[in-house]
């Protein structure tokens, strides 16, 4: 299932209030920083939805 990120809402690490909170909060390693942006590794996602709930920009939703 994984998640999807709305690129218009996402702060792209640099403008994220906590510089990539989703990357930091995902303990599955399903969200990683890649060239100053967030990349999704779908097969690692466990659908715990922690990133969805905690994204300060509400940029993440279920795929």
């Amino acid at each position, binding site marked *: 299932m994984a998640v999807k990120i709305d690129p218009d809402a996402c702060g792209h690490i640099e403008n994220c209030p*906590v510089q990539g*909170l989703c990357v930091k*909060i995902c303990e*599955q390693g399903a969200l990683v920083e890649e060239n100053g942006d967030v990349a999704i590794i779908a097969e690692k996602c*466990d659908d*715990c*939805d*922690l990133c*969805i709930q905690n994204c300060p920009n509400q940029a993440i939703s279920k795929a």
Partner: protein
Amino acid sequence: MFNIERKGSEYRVLSYKDQNCVGCGICSEVCPTDSLRLGPTVPIARGLIEMDLVSVNANSCAFCGLCSSACPFGALDLTIDNVSIKELDVYPKWNVECIVNDDDCVYCGRCNDVCPQDSIIFKRELPDRSALVRGEIDIDDEKCIYCSFCADMCPAGAITVKNIPKASNDVVNNSIEVDLSKCIFCGVCKRICPENAIMEVCSTCMYSDEIDIPEVTGETFIVENTCVSCSWCSEICPKDAISITKPFEGNLELVEIEEEEKICKGESCHACQDVCPCKAVEIVEGKSVTNLDFCNLCGACVTACPQDIRVVSRTAMKLENVNSKSWSEILDTLLVGK
């Protein structure tokens, strides 16, 4: 932490202490003007974000004090003309206690070890070991070869041997000493000594009637300010010396809805475990399990759960003396569950 004030015919100050806050969000639930906001509890609990759990909009706050009365953990306090409303007769009061009965406490310290909030002040004075034993010990310097067998084997660490010269003119400057405050006259040193240099006699049994059992004194005290009423201390106390009243009665359940894929993700998430101020949540076989003995029904985990599958149902709360009908109606919303 914040302090906001309103000057007028009365001087009102609302203050918030983050160190007392558990992130339950009760204050923001009851605020009639929607002026309190609960921050991102999971990232804060994990140390990813440093900020207070609760923030206030000073422009819309009515300084009514409902949050201060509803907070079971003393994180919010409204003062009117410098007097806390918790001290005023007309305002509600939590009828809860966290008390250690000094007469029953034996100063084992187990409460102190388990308290998840470090809210227990504990200290004890144990008597000198020498007060509990009788005996004699003497080491014959002439026979001793400073092999350190005795010092290495002494279970009480009572023997100090100096057998390495500091300088070439120090070759014979050996010494062996017994610390009589530590020696229990067990005789291990005497038995291991290859030179039969140690004389030791234990007379503890012989004098057992004469040896008074010294009293262990101490102090165990629960800091009310930071106690979250989890009951770990009272549950673990072997002497039933601790009384803890929880602020709420009720239940907390995990209600999974498989059709909507709302299921507990256990170790992947563990948000509930991270935010629980009571250490009442564990992940067992991939699912969150809450031990209600230790849960204070604060509901911090309910808000934190990204699957929204935790249901707290509070059936009673120990907040008494609620005189205002409108306050009573708002506070009652805490009882029907979230």
